[in-house]
């Protein structure tokens, strides 16, 4: 039998991965496909940006699917702590959004959030939301400290 702390760590890992995948998916579905705010490819992109984008995209699919299977595994083993898992989802979402907003959009310039508008406020809102998500997630994880596993 694995001990409690293994499950505690696994709740964080599973939730974080799913959070990363979820935000990547929302970004792709909402901003690329529905709103058409982002472009498929911004012609000013650097090679490094293209490579980093490719790896993050590949990882995000694995994070979504793998994170959910880990969630199922935790339930199967009766090791799920819902508040802790949800907190990790929030942290994962926030970290990915902050990475996307600072590194991918600003440093590598793969694409911008939107074109033909003053981008500053969009960037500000994007990254403030990311920081808020991370803070809320950490708060949830702290609250979950005394919590027992779901039986």
């Amino acid at each position, binding site marked *: 039998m694995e001990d409690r702390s293994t499950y505690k760590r696994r709740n964080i890992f599973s939730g974080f991965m799913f959070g990363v995948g979820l935000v990547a998916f929302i970004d792709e579905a909402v901003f690329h496909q529905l709103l058409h705010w982002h472009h498929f490819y911004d012609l000013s992109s650097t090679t490094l940006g293209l490579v980093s984008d490719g790896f993050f995209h590949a990882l995000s699919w694995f994070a979504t699917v793998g994170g959910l*299977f880990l969630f199922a595994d935790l339930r199967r083993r009766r090791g799920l702590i819902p508040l802790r898992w949800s907190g990790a989802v929030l942290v994962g979402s926030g970290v990915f959004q902050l990475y996307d907003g600072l590194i991918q959009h600003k440093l590598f310039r793969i694409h911008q959030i939107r074109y033909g508008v003053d981008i500053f406020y969009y960037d500000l809102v994007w990254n403030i939301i990311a920081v808020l998500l991370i803070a809320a997630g950490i708060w949830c994880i702290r609250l979950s400290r005394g919590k027992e596993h779901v039986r």
Partner: protein
Amino acid sequence: MYVERLALIIASCCILSYLLAMKYSAKRFKTWPLRKLVLFVSGIVIGLQAVAGPIAMHAHHSFVYHMIGHLLLGMLGPLLLILSQPVTLLLRALSQSGARSVSRVFRSRYARFLIHPITAAVLNIGGLWLLYTTHLFHLMHESALVSMLVHLHVFAAGYLFTLAMLYTDPVPYRKSYLYRVIVFVFALAGHGILSKYLYANPPMGIAPADARQGAMLMYYGGDLIDLTIIVILCWQWYQAAAPKTSLSAAKAAE
């Protein structure tokens, strides 16, 4: 024209062999499930679209159609085929000595090298980079022989890669799930990066608008099929990692 006819003959022979193997396997083992026959036939028919028929015809002058053919021949067709487990069926259908010589081939050093996840990924994704970023793509439209060889490679490499990720047939010296996942991330990234590269740098002789549409199809279509493989791979992992003790036994122990 004769290439199309040849492909049709080979495809029919494959389906016929599968049916025959099903018949012989049923003599000594449980009946081979019908859904696997359906997977096999659809895999063959879908792969065939890249070589014969309307998609193949349009592929000569349209990059978008070429890319549809690539997705069917190199990704979807192989996935369906490996899920139909043709080698397992073959081993069941053959006599003991026949099966032994087949498994000897599979266990050979050469086969082991080919089915290694990294080799398979390099052959698959590396082959695509070679095809689209060199003169090969142009040459493929000039010579029927080159075109045939490229199609053969795309299919074989796609099959090898999918098999090396999912191990649906008896593969000797298996790599761990984590190992395969890491190789897969690199392969998936390589495919995505190539799609975006082609969006910005059209292959020789392809109009920019056509190249952009084709590249986006390659990106999202490839994602869809890769996502299916990821789900199957994680599902296999989840099954393999099931706790050894049953739930009732665990309860009794508490």
